[in-house]
């Protein structure tokens, strides 16, 4: 994929569809891509897309209600858009999607200290950085974020314009393995693991801000009546936050990893989210964000759903983990 092609395609989309604004990335002073809103054809000359981006752009869509918005979308973003359409957050006819190929995104936490680091370029599975006056070339594979290594929908599923190019293949399956390893631990060990993760959390809510599915105008954590949790980031309070967020995302998360990349403390959000998606797909045969018109898994029901209630059809013999 060449940047020129991207610029031309986005400008074409902007002109043809008479868009109000276009969501994309532009280069920041450190060379890493930052999200940007483009409002004119000329400004679109700065639009860019490479593995140094981090955020899922669909996050901004609910903020521009009623506007005609264009957006560049790799696989995960396009799936997020499908869910936003299904949940009535944006209408399909106001949305113009420019599908882009994706080689995965860099997890900046893997690069260590970012002071004085400039991102230069990325090509053919490698990227170049300038670090303390030196130029280093690094293999992309070693620095990709966890969710990108595990990605099984790297190409867009929904688009009006498509930019040709190769997308990342061969998902690693690491997340699934980690979830499996966790499930095989004893409940006590699992609790210890997640309490350690919750201890790291400082409840900055960067994960929520980076998530395209967390579009609620008022979040339960900020509610003062009732007050669900204390302001101080204590372990039990953090666990309430992490668990409730995961529960809210069960069957809605496309595992773009936007939250995990945004987390400053490196909390293991991905194994919780991967587990939630897995169990929703096992229980209700459901894959999020692949089909327009589908209802969220926990927003509908079937008469023949599994029933584990006391006094119900099935007994509690079947259990999830132990």
């Amino acid at each position, binding site marked *: 994929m060449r940047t020129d092609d991207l610029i031309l395609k986005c400008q074409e989309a902007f002109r043809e569809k008479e868009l109000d604004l276009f969501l994309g990335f532009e280069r920041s002073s450190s060379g890493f891509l930052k999200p940007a809103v483009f409002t004119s054809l000329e400004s679109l000359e700065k639009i860019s897309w490479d593995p140094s981006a981090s955020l899922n752009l669909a996050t901004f869509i609910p903020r521009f209600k009623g506007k005609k918005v264009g957006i560049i979308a790799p696989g995960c973003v396009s799936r997020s858009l499908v869910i936003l359409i299904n949940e009535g957050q944006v209408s399909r006819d106001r949305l113009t999607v420019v599908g882009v190929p994706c080689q995965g995104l860099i997890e900046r936490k893997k690069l260590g200290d970012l002071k004085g680091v400039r991102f230069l370029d990325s090509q053919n599975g490698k990227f170049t950085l300038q670090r303390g006056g030196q130029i280093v070339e690094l293999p992309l594979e070693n620095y990709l974020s966890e969710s990108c290594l595990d990605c099984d929908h790297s190409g867009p599923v929904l688009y009006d314009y498509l930019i040709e190019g190769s997308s990342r293949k061969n998902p690693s399956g690491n997340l699934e393995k980690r979830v499996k390893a*966790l*499930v095989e631990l004893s*409940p*006590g*060990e*699992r*609790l*210890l*693991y*997640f309490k350690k993760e919750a201890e790291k959390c400082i409840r900055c809510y960067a994960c929520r801000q980076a998530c395209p599915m967390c579009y609620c105008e008022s979040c*339960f954590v900020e509610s003062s009546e*009732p007050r*669900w*949790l*204390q*302001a*101080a980031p*204590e*372990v*039990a*309070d953090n*666990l*309430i936050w992490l*668990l*409730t967020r*995961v*529960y809210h995302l*069960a*069957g809605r998360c496309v595992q773009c990893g936007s939250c995990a990349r945004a987390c400053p403390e490196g909390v293991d959000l991905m194994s*919780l989210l991967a*587990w*939630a998606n897995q*169990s*929703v797909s096992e*229980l*209700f045969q459901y894959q999020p964000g692949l089909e327009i018109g589908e209802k969220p*898994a*926990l*927003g509908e*029901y*079937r*008469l023949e*759903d*599994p*029933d*584990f*209630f*006391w*006094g*119900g059809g099935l007994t509690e013999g079947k*259990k*999830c*983990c*132990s």
Partner: protein
Amino acid sequence: MENFEPKIIAFLCNWCSYAGADLAGVSRFQYPPHVRVIRVPCSGRVNPLFVLKTLYEGADGVLVSGCHPGDCHYQSGNYYARRRLEVFKKLLDFVGLNPARFKMAWISASEGAQFAQLIREFTAEVKETGPNQEFVREKADLVRFLNENR
């Protein structure tokens, strides 16, 4: 542990389970006194946050009960509850919080005897699980600091 008297919070739906509990009382069925009832309009009203919050504030067990499938006063509330609470219970299990502290049940307005039976069973299970120490509210640092340095 033998003297452990658990605290159990039961969210009962107004139309079936609450009436079932009422019938158990009117019929003079005996059941353990550890359960405190909170009446909710429908089992579909029970946000999983209620369960987390209840445990967090110090309960040892949480029960959610509603009308049997097909009997919901609002047609479908209990079907939603069935999906949601099932996922939630599995989530509790996955993070290592003991799922025995959380029980879901169907009790109709005519099932007074079953309600008494359910409470007997659940109380015994929670007693066996022991007091909830793994997931309770901690005092914020400042409060703790003031208490320790009084």
